[in-house]
């Protein structure tokens, strides 16, 4: 095997490792559309990064974070339902990203790789970033596990029992933005949510505790990365969509297993 396959595999495994537990929160808290919105805004982040000649990883994290903050503010004003707000922001961000990229005529930006990922162009520097971010995310998730579960079960009960709900929610948003920034390289902005929720939904069927579900989602996500890369290697299909397709196949197979609890 050549280096680029190995790098791609390692990058995919690193992202899958954290996509498991984070994906569980996305499923439990019904944040799939929210995840989509942040992912779409990451495209705008990349476009602005190219435009302003700043590190792309920074803008691809910062714009989704700003988007999450804006959402919280709009939600509190109660102008529209969250669903509608997400619909507006999600697609506006995607459109804005596409327009800005098309305006950058002098810089060649590979739009397809941004939208659907480019696992095989991972460099050793990317690997450092992915594993660094994944490490930070795992530490945060581990340290804040109980309060995170508590605000997921019921935020008011958690608040009365002394959990700083706002802080924990903000950390969860930060984690989501970070994971989106590293997952973009693997599956692209359009497929990130799939990488988060499909392994978690698969793991749900064979888990009876939240921890089990998070761990199993990680393992399943890693398995789909391996299978997806193999599929991509043998058929020459793009890697990102191959990973998501394998993920969906595993989920379909899991439907035949009787749910445990």
């Amino acid at each position, binding site marked *: 095997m050549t280096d680029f396959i190995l790098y791609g595999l390692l990058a995919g495994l690193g992202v899958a490792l954290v996509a498991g537990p984070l994906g569980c929160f996305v499923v439990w808290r019904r944040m799939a559309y929210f995840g989509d919105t942040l992912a779409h805004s990451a495209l705008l982040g990349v476009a602005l990064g190219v435009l302003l000649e700043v590190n792309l990883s920074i803008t691809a994290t910062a714009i989704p974070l700003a988007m999450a903050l804006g959402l919280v503010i709009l939600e509190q004003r109660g102008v529209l339902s969250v669903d509608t707000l997400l619909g507006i922001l999600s697609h506006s961000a995607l459109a804005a990203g596409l327009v800005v990229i098309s305006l950058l005529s002098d810089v060649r930006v590979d739009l397809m790789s941004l939208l659907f990922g480019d696992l095989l162009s991972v460099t050793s520097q990317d690997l450092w970033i992915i594993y660094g971010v994944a490490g930070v995310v795992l530490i945060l998730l581990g340290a804040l596990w109980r309060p995170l579960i508590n605000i997921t079960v019921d935020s*008011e009960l958690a608040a009365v029992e002394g959990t700083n709900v706002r802080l924990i929610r903000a950390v969860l948003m930060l984690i989501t933005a970070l994971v989106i920034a590293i997952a973009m390289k693997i599956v692209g902005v359009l497929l990130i949510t799939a990488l988060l929720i499909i392994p978690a939904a698969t793991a749900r069927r064979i888990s009876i505790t939240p921890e089990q579900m998070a761990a199993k989602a990680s393992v399943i996500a890693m398995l789909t990365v391996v299978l997806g890369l193999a599929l991509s290697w043998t058929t020459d299909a793009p890697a990102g969509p191959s990973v998501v397709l394998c993920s969906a196949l595993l989920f379909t197979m899991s439907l035949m297993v009787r749910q445990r609890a």
Partner: protein
Amino acid sequence: MTSPLMTLDRIDKSFSGQHVLQNISLNLTQGEITTLIGPNGAGKSTLVRIVLGLLAPDSGSVTASKSLKIGYMPQKLHIDPTLPISTYRFLQLANASYQVCHSALASVGIAHLAKTPIQKLSGGEMQRVLLARAILRKPNLLVLDEPVQGVDINGQNALYKMIGSLSKSLNCAVLMVSHDLHLVMSATDQVICLNHHICCQGRPEQVTKDPAYLDIFGQTALYAHHHDHQHSVHGEVLDRNGVHRHGEGCDHD
């Protein structure tokens, strides 16, 4: 008499110009059960949220004793079916040991459900789990928002008895919201009849003789709200001539 655990003094709260609570003052004292009654939309839940510290009043003060530890039993709790969690694990989330969780489950009579996924519990079982979680941290103030919602009549009686005996053994203050007047009256030390303002308050036997109470709830044991007064668009209480009037025991202006 011991000093109160929590004192609310002349609380006002309005949402987008609508007065929900006006001039509410009350004391919650160790060992006393306070029941909050009143029609739908009277501001009961808003008052509870202020006591819990989830909501800040527009004016007035909330003074809590330094030792205050709240146990809260929400009206109901929906846990997403995608979250795999057993009853025992749910209790453990309140940061309690194995021992404490199991004795709490046993004291509400559902020790056998420890391993059951929480989404599979019946309405009555779920209320008991919520009660168990509320008493886990040995609170000195127990706040119960309509604790028997969705429970059949027999279960309601049992649950009220349980709340009474648990609060006695914990020697805590209880603030309880209820619709079921006839069931709670006997177990209550202080009744507050709320309709944006405090219509009347006192011991149950006083309150049931209070004209303001009788006007609202009638003579029957069944819960029925007969309005003795009109409300202005701002929620101000007016009598039939459109003038603000007070129930007996009302001391606000």
